[in-house]
């Protein structure tokens, strides 16, 4: 029976239901009740005050803007009130949680009335039509909540999914308290009025309620109170990094660098483990566990309080703070699954990248590969450490026109498009698509890395230099519109550069091609290719919410097939966060897992939309591709292959 059906059924019975009232309390009992209420509230405040201090005493978020309120309001409605994310990402347990949550909301009135009743005051006027209806309405919810909490209890203590971590006694106690609240309420619907049984039930219900309150602070059940606020106050952008101000800010180095939002989010963590469940590093046995990182921040604040000078990354941390370590921070691919998944509004990336910024901006991070990457970016201006002359040669060979202000688009090549053999093929094929469409474009004479690996690895000095250089070259060339094949460049130029200035409008080649789909389809010749499984790049999907355009492009060229994890749940290729440059990973490789998953669809071709993903899968196919590996092509290549030969080989590209 659906929840709604059940509700109607119970409401229909309302004439038969009456909530048993206890005989009115004597003076002594009322004094006792008042004392218990005060005690409960006092204990709650006593346990809650250090947490409030830790949050409020942390650094103010100078870049937090509440506007536009509409978007925040909508998110509050959708994610908190409707529990949409909770349900969508874990269907059954999510629904059970939503039922408990809605039940709590429905019970607010009953609870207030219950306490008022102790002092002889029936606020709800239960004899009235509304009161009678409400009693029955709450009764229906009590049934649903009791079922749901029993189910959640069974999941946690019998099924024991590993993401929930060690069995927590506290969760069991809370579940029993909730069940007891519902059971006592339901029992009050059937016992006779003013009977001793009614009095017993009333006291039991009230005592459970008063016991529940002080348990909330200091446990993950604090999310009951904090998470609505956390979801509302979340930083508006995905993986939004704050600007480092003044001479003493280098990222997250000590407790002084933790902001109120970070503290609020850490105390809101409900320990559900969705972040870790979806984390590519955790899934392949790396030391990173995003849930424990968040709890590590909380543990730090609990031990040191706000504004402490103690380093966040310690040599020999104890307890939960152990998860806060440099190897953990640098194992993150910044795929953003954690941040996307979190139902209570925790944003992991600003913490993980913040820790990296702290370590890199102070020079504490020493890594052979990392240093090599930074020096390549410092000296050669690209992440692959190649000479700029190599790019010049490629441009000359492809006969790409230089951008001179007369063309519509500036085609941004990026490091992969400029120097990587496969990246170059992708760029060349996309250029042919543009040419076939008759769109005019040019490339910059000189291009430096957009700064994505520097940004994600926390090198703000280098990132700032690259961003300023990039902004200057676009301004000097008079660029109005940019198109790129690389989602990392896209995100970095469109969002991260904003700290330094306004970049021209930029779009991904999937968006460009999808917009010209009608014309492209008219130009296409030959048979549709076979099945293509499309892999959502993190930096295009979760970072930019571009899901449909690349699918539309794939559908032009072949039959679109979905991998088990796709769209928002797409699994990382392992390259992001600068990890493509940090040498071979310890343990399983993220790219191997994802490649196997894509191959399991049986598709003839793997379609990518990011040169980094392409590069990772290219290597992985060599290892795990077997005797007849699928084809690996960028979506631009899928399209280019179906364009007539003369459109591709007509010599000079249009300037």
């Amino acid at each position, binding site marked *: 029976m659906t929840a709604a059906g059940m509700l109607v059924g119970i409401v229909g019975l309302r004439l038969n239901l009456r909530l048993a009232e206890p005989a009115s309390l004597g003076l002594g009992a009322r004094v006792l009740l008042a004392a218990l209420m005060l005690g409960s509230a006092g204990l709650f405040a006593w346990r809650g005050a250090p947490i409030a201090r830790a949050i409020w005493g942390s650094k103010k978020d100078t870049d937090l803007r509440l506007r536009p309120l509409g978007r925040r309001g909508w998110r509050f409605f959708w994610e908190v009130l409707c529990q949409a994310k909770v349900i969508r990402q874990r269907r059954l347990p999510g629904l059970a949680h939503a039922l408990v949550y809605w039940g709590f909301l429905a019970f607010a009135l009953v609870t207030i009335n219950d306490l008022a009743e102790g002092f002889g005051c029936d606020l709800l006027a239960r004899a009235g039509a509304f009161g009678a209806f409400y009693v029955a309405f709450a009764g229906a919810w009590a049934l649903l909540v009791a079922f749901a909490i029993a189910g959640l209890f069974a999941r946690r203590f019998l099924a024991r999914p590993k993401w929930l971590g060690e069995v927590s006694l506290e969760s069991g106690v809370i579940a029993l308290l909730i069940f007891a609240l519902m059971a006592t309420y339901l029992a009050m619907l059937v016992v006779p009025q003013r009977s001793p049984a009614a009095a017993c039930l009333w006291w039991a219900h009230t005592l459970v309620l008063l016991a529940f309150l002080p348990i909330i602070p200091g446990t993950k059940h604090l999310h009951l109170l904090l998470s609505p606020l956390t979801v509302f106050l979340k930083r508006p952008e995905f993986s939004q990094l704050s600007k480092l101000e003044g001479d003493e800010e280098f990222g997250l180095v000590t407790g002084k660098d933790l902001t109120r939002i970070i503290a609020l989010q850490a105390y809101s963590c409900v320990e559900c483990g969705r972040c870790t469940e979806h984390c590519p590093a955790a899934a392949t046995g790396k030391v990173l566990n995003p849930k424990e990182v968040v709890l590590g921040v909380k543990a730090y604040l609990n031990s040191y309080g706000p504004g402490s000078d103690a380093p966040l990354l310690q040599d020999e941390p104890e307890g939960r703070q152990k998860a806060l370590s440099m190897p953990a921070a640098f194992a993150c691919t910044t795929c953003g699954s954690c941040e996307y998944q979190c139902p209570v509004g925790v944003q992991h990336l600003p913490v993980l990248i913040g820790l990296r910024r702290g370590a*890199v901006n102070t020079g504490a991070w020493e890594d052979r590969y990392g240093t090599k990457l930074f020096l390549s970016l*410092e*000296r050669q201006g690209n992440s692959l450490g190649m000479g700029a002359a190599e790019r010049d040669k490629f441009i000359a060979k492809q006969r790409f026109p230089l951008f001179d202000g007369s063309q519509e688009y500036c085609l941004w090549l990026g490091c992969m498009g400029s120097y990587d053999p496969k990246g170059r093929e992708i760029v060349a094929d996309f250029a042919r698509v543009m040419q076939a469409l008759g769109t005019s474009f040019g490339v910059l004479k000189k291009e430096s890395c957009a700064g994505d690996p520097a940004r994600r690895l926390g090198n703000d000095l280098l990132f700032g230099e690259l961003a300023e250089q990039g902004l200057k070259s676009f301004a000097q060339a008079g660029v109005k519109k940019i198109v790129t094949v690389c989602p990392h460049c896209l995100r970095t130029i469109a969002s991260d550069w904003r700290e330094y200035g306004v970049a021209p409008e930029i779009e991904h080649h999937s968006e460009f091609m999808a917009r010209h789909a009608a014309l492209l389809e008219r130009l296409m010749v030959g048979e549709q290719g076979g099945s293509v499984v499309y892999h959502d790049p993190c930096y295009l999907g979760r970072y930019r919410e571009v899901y449909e355009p690349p699918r539309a492009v794939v559908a032009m060229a072949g039959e679109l097939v979905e991998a088990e994890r796709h769209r928002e749940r797409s699994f990382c290729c392992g390259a992001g966060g600068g990890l493509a440059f940090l040498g071979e990973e310890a343990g399983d490789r993220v790219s191997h897992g994802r490649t196997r998953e894509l191959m399991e669809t049986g598709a003839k071709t793997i379609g990518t939309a990011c040169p980094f993903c392409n590069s990772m899968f290219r290597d992985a196919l060599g290892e795990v591709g077997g005797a007849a590996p699928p084809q690996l092509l960028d979506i631009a290549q899928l399209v280019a292959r179906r364009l007539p030969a003369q459109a591709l080989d007509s010599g000079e590209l249009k300037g």
Partner: protein
Amino acid sequence: MKIVVAVKQVPEREAVLRVTPDGRSIDESDVAWTMNEPDAYALEEALQLKQRAAEAGLGEAEVVVLSAGPERVQSTLREALAKGADRALHVVTPESGEGSLAERGSLDVARLLAEAVKGEQPELVLTGLQSDDLGAGQTGVVMAELLGLPHATLVLQVEFAGQGGVGRRIKVRRELEDGWTQFVEVPLPALLTIQSGGNRLRYATLMGIKRARQKEMRELSAATPTQRVDEVVKVSPPLRLKQTEMLTGAAEEIAAKLVERLRFEVKVL
């Protein structure tokens, strides 16, 4: 202990270089500048020595970075301060014309630097083996001569040597041809010219740059140039000589054509 590191600012490796109309130098107007690579390794060695001196109980070592040139060299000095040097000395020369770097030979530049070093009385002077732009490889050794210091060239690594009076002598590893290395003990004070690749360079950090703003950068005036003993006659870009020509026809014809070319054009037969 005090270590002076002499560094040069050179055009970036990727810089597009144009020869000036007189054909004797490069046009500096549009060039991006960077620290000469062997000098970057010299600085790295100095910074590591500073750390090792502290670990060996030799007290706090000071690393002073030194450069001669116009205003622009201060960006390279700042970079050195950001990477960990304690203070900087800038021997200021005019941007162009009389007294500018372009007008001074290696001997003259070595004189400028040696003069600045004298004021510091360091125990060790480090500089790159040669510069990425002119590649004369003279400045370091000439400086040693002018300062009356013993020197070692092509040095990859430096360590403190000797018993008891640790720090009075150093042991250096020099690069020889064909992968051979040589260890030499040198008494202090001394001058070493450093070869690239002996260490891992460090990356510049935000904290380094911010801290560098508070570090001392002292400007020294440059002595008037002395008469050059050498003269730059001509600077020219490398000529592209590689040419490929496909010979076609039957195998016999190709062979005949090839022999003809090798005999009369390449003149090797």
